[in-house]
Every structure is written in structure tokens, then in C-alpha cells.
């Protein structure tokens, strides 16, 4: 089985995600881009699981974990974005420079 196409798909998705994180101004869209990066990682995990065939399907199990964690992360991330929006009437990441001391 050729895995190139899967890996290329994963790489493309990851790159898209990175691009989104770096360029989008809207915090919700940044979160979506992060989800894209996680999905790309999941594709890689499942692909290599098929190649390695370790008997316990570790890659697939790990992918399930990541999906679960991603769900939780989105929950918390959206909650943060909501709170920021409520406080500042904006979800524009450019304006969030509070990390500068």
C-alpha cells in the first residue's frame, strides 16, 4: 500500500492549518485552523498504524484520544473566545496584545 497520498494529504491539511493560525484575525477561525492541524495529525497516525500493524492498533487508538482531547479543547477555546468577545466586543486577535508585559 502506498502511503504517500495519505501523507501528502496530511501535510497539505497541516500546512493549511498553520496558514490559518498565522493569518486569520478572527479567533474562531484560528481555532478552526487548529482543528485542521489536529485532523492532519490524526490522518498521519492512522496511516502509520496501517503500515506498522502493531496488533493493538495503537495509532488508531491515539487518533481517538486526539479527537476526544480536541473536542474538549474546542469547548474550552470557544469559552475563552466568548469571554474575550464579551469583555472587549471583539474577537480580533490583533487587538489581543496582553501577553506583552
Amino acid at each position, binding site marked *: 500500500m502506498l502511503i504517500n497520498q495519505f501523507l501528502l494529504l496530511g501535510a497539505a491539511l497541516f500546512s493549511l492549518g*498553520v496558514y490559518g*493560525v*498565522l*493569518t486569520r484575525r478572527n479567533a474562531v477561525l*484560528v481555532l478552526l485552523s487548529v482543528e485542521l492541524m489536529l485532523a492532519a495529525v490524526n490522518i498521519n497516525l492512522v496511516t502509520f498504524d496501517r503500515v506498522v500493524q502493531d496488533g493493538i492498533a495503537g495509532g488508531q487508538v491515539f487518533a481517538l484520544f486526539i479527537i476526544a482531547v480536541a473536542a474538549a479543547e474546542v469547548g474550552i477555546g470557544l469559552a475563552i473566545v466568548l469571554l474575550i468577545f464579551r469583555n472587549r466586543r471583539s474577537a480580533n*486577535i*490583533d487587538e*489581543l*496584545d*496582553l*501577553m*506583552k*508585559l
Partner: protein
Amino acid sequence: MSSLLASAVPFLLAAEDGAKKVFSDGGVLAEWAWLIPVVPMVAAFAIVFFGKRSPLQGWGMAWGSMAFVAVYGTVLFFMNISDGIVYEGAVAIGSWGADGLGNTFGIEWGWMVDGLSIMMYFVVGVVGVLVFTYAKGYMEGDIRYTWFFASFALFGGGMLVLVSAPNLVQLIVGWELVGVASWLLIGHYWEDHENSSAAIKAFLVNKVADVGLFIGAIIIGLSAGSFRFSVIMDVIAEGGGDSTLAQFSFWAGVAIFIGAMGKSAQFPLHVWLPDAMAGPTPVSALMHAATMVTAGVYLLGRLFPFFNTPGFADDVRWIIIIIGTLTLFLTGLIALVADDIKKVLAYSTLSQLGYMVTAMGAGAYTAGLFHLFTHAFFKALLFLGAGSVIHAVHSNNMSDMGGLRKYMPQTYWTFMIGSLALAGIFPLAGFWSKDEILASIQYAGGNYTTAQGGAELANFVLVVAIAGAFVTAFYMTRAVSLTFFGEYKGDGHPHESPKVMTYPLIGLAGFSVVAGWINIPGVIKWFTDALGARFLAPGDHHPESIEISLAIIGTLAAVGGIVAGYFIWFADKDTQQERDKFRIPLLYPLLEKKYYIDDFYMNGIVKPIRGPVANAVDWFNGHVIDLVINGTGLGATRVAKLVYWFDQRFVDGAINASAAATGETGGMLRLLQTGRVQQYAFLIVAGTVVLVAGFIIF
């Protein structure tokens, strides 16, 4: 402490032939006798540090230490009379070089408990405790009260170190301690320039003599192979002949005697003693009775076999006897013209010391030390009595006194007893000891003449000594009549001194009466036996029975002196002062100027040396020492300037530069910190890409 006692070496000596007793080692009392010098020394230092805070301002500690010595000394004294103690304890402290012949000298701290030392413990302790009692009253209100008692305890302690020394090195330590303490005490009222000069004079005259002692001690120590008296005595016991000690003994003996001349103030080194009257009266009393001036006589007694054994320094005895005789007569005459009552007593002390030294020179060990013993009591009494008078009259001069008999009865009676004892009137203490000395001189003339013309010299000395007894009685009559009889000439109302001062007077008066009775020739010889307890029997020469004729002649001389004095100063009260002011031409100025000895020392020795030496020292100071100091200062300034420049340019530069570099780097780096998450993320991604690219390419 047990190791200290274990290292103590007891010595037992079998009875010498002729001695009637087996000597004991003194048991535990002798083993612990090291406390005798240590307690007053510790007290002296304790007073310095804690005296002011103690309830009695330090007097208690000083008195207590002396009382301890007095009790210990008294017990030992009576034990010695019955048993005869000879004990030597020693603790090794270190050893001292080699002389090339394989000898090393051990340095030891020790304590001697034999007849001679015990007699001195007794005298220092008993006289000391009485004088310390008296001093409490006399020094009341003194500005340096505590310091005075610290020095006073050091004075007594130093003397006890001296007399307890079983070797010459420790003896010198005690000798110098006494010298230092006397310097402190004579200069006690140092605000007066005269007093501090007197202190320095006493110290320097003693130093001159100390050189003699050092040389003598070095010669004896090297040639005998040890500084220990017991070893030196062993060498002497082997007899003269070719031993190294015998070969050098004449000069060693002369050197040791010069040392003794300093402390015991023998002519012509006596000049410090009258000036030493500058100190407080209790100091004079102790100095003239028990400590300091007795040290020289003690030293002669300690080394007596060395001076008295044929083949050793027995030739030196003729020098000793001549110096002693000169001292006893010439200084006694000066006492006749002094107006200061303390100076009269000081010259009297010189004269009596002359007697002791003469006796030592005549080979009369017991007689000389017996006179030391009795003299200690009545001279302390006379000084304390004079102090009591001075306390009442506030003047030292007899021309301000007179008639004090009515105002100060206790002082008067005790002073009277002291004067009679000093004059040698039967049966007071001075009679017995002076008679013993006269008898011993006669005995030496008759039976003990080794040198040519010895008999003639001894007869001459005997005549001078009897004449000295006349002079003694004469000047004491003068002192008593000018002080206690006639009309009172001073200011204010004199009154009797407090009890703390009169009780010691009464105690000493008691001793002045009875002290002579322990050595009555032919009847009681306790003192002779007690003093004979030595490692080497002293080889004393003295008659066994009383010389009635000599005793009568001596007493007649004393009575003659009193009668002559009576006719001059007593007979007519009204003209007493005029009679005292009568001046014998030629003789009076000579006496008044003290034979010009002080002037000779000042103009003949001190000034010729002081002038050039002072100039040379001044030149040296100005040209050499200042040059060195200025050069050092200048050099230090230059170096400091260089260091300052280096500090400013390089050290500070480096620090400032590093600070500036840090600041600029920080300024550049802070531009990166924008707070924008996306920028950070971009940098992370860029960094990752670079790293991955690096891994792939390389």
C-alpha cells in the same frame, strides 16, 4: 592539677653534720606552696579587670591574697621551726637551646620551700597583711584606689615569685616584677613631675644593677650547667679546685653582688631609695620592710654557700663587707640632716641594709637574715607611724610637726617602740639582731680571716658598726623629738588616725618587741635552726653564745646616741628648732647634698650621655627615620595614584562596558516582544522550518 603535682620533684636531704634534725619534705603543705606566689599575682590581675565592680573596690581581693600568704607563711614558719622543711617543686615549661657542649637548659617554674624561703613568706605575708590593712585607711578617697591595690598586690606577688624561685631564671622574673611594681607604685602620684622622675630613677638605677645580676646569673648558670640552686649547690658541695664554676666564680660573685647592690640600695647605687619616698607611705613601708630592698640580701643569702665556700667567690666577701660598711655609716649620717620624716626613715633603711650586707660579707648568714627579719617589723612600723603622722599633719616635713604626742597617743607609743627597736635597746627586736651582727663581725675578725689583713679590716668594720649604732640612735631621737615633742608648728588640728590604721601599728609594735626573742644566742636558736634547713648547709659563722661585752658596748652606743640627742633636741623645748637649725660647717653641706653623689650622677653621667645621645637620636630621627617614613609615604601615594588610574580606566571601564552592552542587547530584544500571539506562532513555525530544513540538508 594532678599531673602538675606529679611532676613536682621533692628533695630530701639527710642531716648535715652538726645539724640536729632530720629535714622533712614538708608534706602536702609544701606541695601546695606554689599557691603562695600565684594567689597574689592572680589577685593583682583580677583587681585590674574586676576591681572597680567588686564591693570593696579591689581592696578585699588584695587583702585576702595577702592574708592567705600570711596564714600559709605562719603555718610553714612554725612547722619549719619544729621539723625543718626542705622541698623543691618544679614544673618544666620548656627547654632552651644548646650551648654546643650538648647541654640544654630546662626552663622551669618552681617553688622552693626551705628555711630561707619560708622566713620570707612569713615576713612578706605578715607585714604585707598589716600594711594592706593600714593602706585601706591611708588610701581612702584616692583617685586611683583600685589601681593602687592592683599594683600593690603585684608588688607582693612579684616578691613572692622571687623568694619562691628555685632557679635563677625564675628569680630574675620575680626580680623584674618587683621592679615594675615599684615603678608603678613610686609613680602613683604621677601628676607631679617629681614623682614620676623618682619612679624612673628607681627603675633605671635598678636596671644598671640588673645588668650585673644577668651577667652573674649567666656565668653561674653556664658554668654550673644549670640555673637550679640545688644543682649549683651540688657543684659547690663538691668543692673548688678546677670546676668551671670555681674558675669564673670571682667575677660571677662580683656581678651577682652588683645586682644585689641595686635592689638592696647599697652605696653608690643607693640613690634611688630616698627618692622612692615619692610613693604613698604604705608603699614605702612595704618596700623598706618586706619586699624590694630585702631582695638583694635574700639573693646573697640564697647563694650564700657560693660566697662562703673557699675556692669559690669567697674573695668577693671583702668587697661586700666594705660596701656594706660604707653604706651603713655614710647613709646613717645623711639621716641626721633630712627634714622630711620619710627621708630620715629611708636613710635609716639604707643604713640598716648596710648592716645586713656587712653581716653577709662577714660570713654571718643567720645574723644578716635575722636583722632582715626583725628590721622588717620595726621599719614597717616606723613608716606606717610616719604615714599616720603625715595623714594628720598633711606635710612630710618635721618642721611642720612637733608636739604630736598629745594629739596622737597610739601613733606616738608605737612609733616610740619602733624607734627603740631600731636603735637596738634591750629587749626589743633590733637589739638581738644588731648584737648578733656585731658579734659575727667580731667572730669573723677573730676566727675567720682568710685574706691578708682580714683581722684588721674586721676590727675596723666592728668599730664602724658600733659607731653606726650610735648614729642610728642619734637620728631616731631627733626624729622622735621633732615630731612628737615641743610645740606643734603645723596648720589645723591634728587628730589620731582611724582604727584601721592604728591597729596595724599596734600589731607591728608587738612584733617589734617579740621578733628578736626567737634567736637568743645560747638560749633559743629556733631561727638559726629554721634558716639552716637548706640543700647545702650555709656554712654559717657565728658565735654560739651571747657576747656580753659586745652587747653592752652596742647598747652603750645606742644609749649614748639617745642621750646626745636628748641634750641637743629635748633639753630645751623653746630652742629646739634653733638647735636643729645649727649647721656644722663643711660637714653639713656635704650631708645636705648627699655627698654630691646625685649631682655627680646627673652632671657626670646622665647629662654627658644624655646630651650627645639625645642629639644623635634627634639627628637619626630627623635624617634617617623621617626619611624612611616620608619615602614610604610618598611611595605609597604614587602607588595609590597608579592604582586609582587603573581602577578608573580598566576596572570601571570593563564594568560599565558590560552594563552598556547588556542594556543595548536588551533594547534590541524587547522589540521582538509584541504580545501578538500570531507573531510568536509565526516565529515558532519559522524556527521549526529552519531546524527541519537544517536536518534535511545536513
